[in-house]
C-alpha cells in the first residue's frame, strides 16, 4: 500500500470553472480518508487528479513517495471504483475482473487464483459468467469493487461507490468496506456527498466546498469543533440550529443575547468581542425539560419518531424555530409547552464575516444551566 | 490516429480541388495537346461569364433548386406530421425505400412513367382532364422539367420527412395536449407548438437539400440528358460535357471552381444566417 499526496493542486477548466483551488491533502499509507462535500465541491475532481484521469493545472501528485504528476493513469497502480461502476458491458463478470490483469500480463494461473479469491470474498462465484446487464445494482457494485481488488493496487480510489444503492444495501456495504479496509490495511480515498457515510467510515474526513478544503479532521473533531460555519452546518443530521445573536458585555460578565433567549457563558473562556455573532447548537445537544427550566421556553410544533428517538420541532417564545432530539419518555404533543436548555460548552460560535470558529464558549464553573 | 482518414481525404478531395483551381487558370485542351498549357489568368472565367449556355445552366439549376427544395420541405413537413403517431416500422420502411434506390434506377423508373411506351403520367393527365392528346414530356423545354422535379421530390421528400419526424418526436407530448385542451385547432397546434421544435431540423434539411439540388447530375443525365437540346441542363451536367466530352480541362476547371465557390458561398452565407441555431443542435 502507498500514501497519496495532493500537493497544492489546482484544477481550472478551459471554461473558467475552478474545480480545485490550492488543495493540499495527504493520505497516509493504509489510511481511509473520506472526501465529503456538496455537489460541485471538487471531491470527484480531486479523486480523478489522483488517479491521473485529469491533469492538474497546478501542483503535484505523489503516490507512494513518487511524483506521478506526469505519469499516465494506467501506470499509477491505483484502482478506482466509479459511481456508475463503469463495467465493460460486453464482457462477462469474469472477463471484467480479468481485464486489468491481462493488461499487466499476469500469468493465467495467478489470474485465476485472484479471481477465485475475490469472487469468494464478494460473493460473486455464481455470477461470474453473466454480463453486467443481467446483474442487479448491488451485484454490479460488488463486481466494480472486485475489479479493483483483483488488481492488488497501491491504493483504492472510490468515487461515490455506494450512492446508487438503496438505503439498506448502502448500510451493509459500508460495513463491508470497513471490513475490507481492516483486512487489507488498504489506503483508501473514499468520495461521498453523504455526511453520515463520511462520519461512519472515515478515519479522517476532508470537507470540501467549491474547490477549497474547509476542514480536515477526525469525525469527532468535525462534530465537536467544526472550523467553519459550513462544516458545522454540513455535518450532522438533523442539521445545526442557527441563531443570529449579539455578544454583549454586562459589567464583568458576558451575555449572548438573542430575541428568544439570553445565555451567560464564562467570560474567561470566550474569545469573542462584543458584536453580532452566529450561534449554532446541535439538536443532539439541546435538552427538553419543563417550561421554565433552561434558557428559553417553546411550544412544540411537530414531533417525528425515529426508532427510539424523537425529532422535536418547536417555536421559541420570542421567535425562531428550533429542532431538538429527545430520547426521553415525557409526553410531547403538538402544542405542548416546554423549556429548552442550551449547554454552554456545546455552543458553536462563528464570526459572521469570516464564518470561522470563535473559541470558547464554556459554562461558568459551578453553573451548569445558563 | 486520424492520419489515414485525413491523408485520404486530403489526397482525394483537397488536393484535386486545389489542382482544379490551378487548372482553371490555364488553357488545357486534351483534344489539342499541341497547344500546351499556357497560363491565361482569369480568361477562362471571363469566357464562362460570357457563355450563354453556362448562364442558362446556372439559371436552370437555381430555379430547379428553389422549386424542388421548397416542395420537399413543405411536403416533407406534411408527411412528417401525418406519419407522427403512425406505427414506426411502416413509416420508416416507406420513407427509406425511395432513398435507398439508386438515383439512376429511380430516374429510369420515372422516365418510364413519363416517357415509356404507355406513359402512366399521360394516363393521370387524361384522368385529371388536363389533356386528351398524349403529351411528349421530354420534347418540350418546360415540360421536360416536370419529370425531373417529380422524380427528385419523390426520391427525397420521404427522407426529409424522416428527419423531421425524428425532430417532431422530440416535441413534448404534454405541450401538445395542453394546447389542445386550451382549444387550439390542429393548425395552431402545429404552428405554435410543433413548428418551433421543428425549425432547427428544417434549417439543417434546407441546407443539405439546397446543396444537393445545386449539384444535381445523375437524375438529369438519365432522365433527359439535359434535353431537349440544353433546356434542362444543370451546371453539373454542362461542366461534365465540357470536361469529359469536349475535353477542355482548363475551361471545365473554371466552371467547376465557379460551382464550388457558389456552393461554398451558399453554405457560408447560410451558416452565418442560421449558424447559431445549427450549432445549438450540435449540442
Amino acid at each position, binding site marked *: 500500500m502507498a500514501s497519496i499526496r495532493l500537493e497544492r493542486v489546482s484544477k481550472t477548466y478551459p471554461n473558467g470553472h475552478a474545480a480545485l483551488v490550492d488543495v493540499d491533502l495527504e493520505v497516509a499509507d493504509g489510511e481511509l480518508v473520506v472526501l465529503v462535500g456538496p455537489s460541485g465541491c471538487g471531491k470527484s475532481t480531486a479523486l480523478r487528479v489522483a488517479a491521473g484521469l485529469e491533469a492538474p493545472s497546478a501542483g503535484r501528485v505523489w503516490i507512494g513517495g513518487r511524483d506521478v504528476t506526469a505519469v499516465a493513469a494506467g501506470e499509477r497502480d491505483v484502482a478506482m471504483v466509479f459511481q456508475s461502476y*463503469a463495467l465493460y458491458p460486453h464482457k462477462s463478470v469474469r472477463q471484467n475482473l480479468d481485464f486489468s490483469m491481462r493488461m499487466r500480463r499476469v500469468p493465467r494461473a495467478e489470474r485465476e487464483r485472484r479471481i477465485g479469491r475475490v469472487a469468494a470474498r464478494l460473493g460473486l462465484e455464481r455470477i461470474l459468467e453473466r454480463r453486467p446487464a443481467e446483474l442487479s445494482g448491488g451485484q454490479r457494485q460488488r463486481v466494480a469493487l472486485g475489479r479493483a481488488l483483483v488488481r492488488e493496487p497501491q491504493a483504492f480510489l472510490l468515487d461515490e461507490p455506494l450512492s446508487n444503492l438503496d438505503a439498506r444495501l448502502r448500510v451493509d456495504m459500508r460495513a463491508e468496506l470497513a471490513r475490507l479496509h481492516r483486512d487489507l490495511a488498504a489506503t483508501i480515498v473514499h468520495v461521498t456527498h453523504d455526511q453520515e457515510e463520511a462520519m461512519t467510515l472515515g478515519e479522517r474526513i476532508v470537507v470540501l466546498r467549491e474547490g477549497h478544503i474547509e476542514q480536515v479532521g477526525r469525525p469527532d473533531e468535525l462534530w465537536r469543533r467544526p472550523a467553519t460555519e459550513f462544516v458545522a452546518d454540513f455535518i450532522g443530521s438533523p442539521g445545526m440550529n442557527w441563531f443570529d445573536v449579539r455578544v454583549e458585555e454586562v459589567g464583568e460578565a458576558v451575555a449572548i443575547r438573542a430575541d428568544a433567549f439570553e445565555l451567560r457563558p464564562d467570560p474567561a473562556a470566550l474569545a469573542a468581542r462584543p458584536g453580532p455573532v452566529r450561534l449554532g447548537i446541535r439538536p443532539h445537544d439541546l435538552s427538553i425539560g419543563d417550561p421554565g427550566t433552561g434558557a428559553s421556553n417553546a411550544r412544540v410544533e411537530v414531533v417525528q419518531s425515529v426508532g427510539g428517538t424523537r425529532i422535536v420541532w418547536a417555536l421559541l417564545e420570542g421567535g425562531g424555530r428550533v429542532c431538538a432530539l429527545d430520547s426521553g419518555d415525557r409526553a410531547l404533543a403538538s402544542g405542548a409547552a416546554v423549556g429548552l436548555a442550551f449547554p454552554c460548552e456545546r455552543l458553536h460560535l462563528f464570526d459572521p464575516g469570516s464564518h470561522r470558529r470563535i473559541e470558547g464558549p464554556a459554562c461558568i464553573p459551578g453553573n451548569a444551566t445558563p | 490516429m486520424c492520419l489515414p482518414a485525413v491523408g485520404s481525404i486530403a489526397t482525394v478531395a483537397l488536393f*484535386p480541388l486545389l489542382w482544379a483551381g490551378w487548372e482553371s487558370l490555364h488553357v488545357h485542351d486534351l483534344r489539342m495537346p499541341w497547344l500546351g498549357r499556357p497560363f491565361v489568368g482569369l480568361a477562362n472565367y471571363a469566357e464562362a461569364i460570357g457563355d450563354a449556355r453556362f448562364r442558362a445552366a446556372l439559371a436552370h439549376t437555381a430555379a430547379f433548386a428553389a422549386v424542388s427544395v421548397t416542395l420537399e420541405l413543405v411536403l416533407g413537413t406534411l408527411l412528417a406530421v401525418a406519419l407522427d403517431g403512425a406505427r414506426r416500422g411502416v413509416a420508416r420502411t416507406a420513407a427509406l425505400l425511395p432513398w435507398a434506390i*439508386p438515383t439512376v434506377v429511380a430516374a429510369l423508373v420515372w422516365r*418510364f412513367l413519363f416517357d415509356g411506351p404507355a406513359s402512366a403520367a399521360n394516363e393521370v393527365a387524361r384522368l385529371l382532364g388536363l389533356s386528351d392528346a398524349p403529351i411528349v414530356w421530354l420534347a418540350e423545354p418546360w415540360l421536360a422539367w416536370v419529370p425531373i422535379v417529380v422524380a427528385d421530390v419523390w426520391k427525397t421528400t420521404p427522407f426529409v420527412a424522416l428527419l423531421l419526424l425524428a425532430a417532431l418526436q422530440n416535441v413534448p407530448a404534454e405541450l401538445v395536449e395542453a394546447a389542445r385542451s386550451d382549444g387550439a385547432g390542429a393548425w395552431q397546434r402545429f404552428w405554435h407548438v410543433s413548428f418551433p421544435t421543428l425549425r432547427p431540423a428544417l434549417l439543417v434539411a434546407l441546407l443539405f437539400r439546397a446543396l444537393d439540388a445545386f449539384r444535381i447530375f445523375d437524375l438529369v443525365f438519365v432522365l433527359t440528358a439535359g434535353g431537349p437540346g440544353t433546356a434542362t441542363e444543370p451546371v453539373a451536367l454542362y461542366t461534365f460535357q465540357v470536361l469529359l466530352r469536349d475535353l477542355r480541362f482548363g475551361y471545365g476547371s473554371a466552371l467547376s*471552381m465557379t460551382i464550388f465557390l457558389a456552393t461554398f458561398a451558399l453554405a457560408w452565407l447560410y451558416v452565418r444566417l442560421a449558424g447559431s441555431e445549427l450549432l445549438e443542435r450540435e449540442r
Partner: protein
Amino acid sequence: MKRLATLAALAAIALPLWLAATASLSPEARLFEGPVWLPRELALEHYRALGSHGDFWLGLRNSLVVASLTTALCLPIGALCAYALARLRFPGRAVLLAATMATAMFPQIAIVSPLYLLLRALGLVHTYPGLVVPYVSFALPLTVWLLVGFLRQLPAEIEQAALLDGASRWRVWFEIVMPLAAPALAATGILTFLYCWNEFLFALSFTLGPERQTMPVAIALLRGQYQIPWGTILAAAVVSTAPVAALVLAFQRRITAGLAAGAVKG
C-alpha cells in the same frame, strides 16, 4: 384524416415502384397498352432477356466488389479517426472536424477532372482501386460524423476504467470501444455500402467499359438495338434494387437511428 393522408402518401411513394415492377413482369406487347395497375398475366421474358446482357451482370459484380472494398476500408479508418476526434484532445481538433464535414459538401463535379488526371497519371483509370480510393475519401466524412456522434454518447467512464486498468489508447479503441460501437458501425457500414452502390458520376468518369463499370452506369447505358428496351431496363432495375431494398428494410431501425444521430443529408 391523418390516417387517410398517411395512406395517400404511402401510396404515392410506393406506386411508381409498383408500376415499374409490374411492367417488368408483363409481356412486351402489354407495355404499349397502358400502365399496368394490376398485372393480369406474368411473363419472365424481360428477365430472360436480361440474362443475355452481359454488361449488366458485370456491372453488378463490379458494384459488389467496389462497395464491399470501400466499406471494409472506410469503417476502420473512419472509426479510428472518429475516436480520436471524439475523445482525444489535440490542437486543431475542431478545424479537422469542420474540414472533414466540408468535404461532404463538395460538388463532386469540381473534382472530377483533376481526379481523373491524377488517376490517369497513377494508371488507375478503369481499375477497382481507381474507384475505391475516391469512394473511401468521400464516404469518410459521413462515417466519421456518424461515429463521432455515437461515440460522444458512450459513457467516457468505461474507457477511463480501461485506461486505469493499464490499457493503451489503441487497446481501448479495439477491445472496448469498437465492440460497443457495433450497432453504429453496422448502420454506418450499410450507409457506406449504399453510397457506393448508388454513386454515378465518378463511376461514369473513371471507367472506360463494362469490365469495370458499376451497376448504375451499366443500367444507364443499357441500350437496345432500335428503341429503348423498357422491359429489360425495368427488369434490370428490379434485379439491382431488390437486394439493396431488402437490406435497407431489414435494417431500417438501425439506419434511422444512425441517421437521426447525425441528421445528415441523404
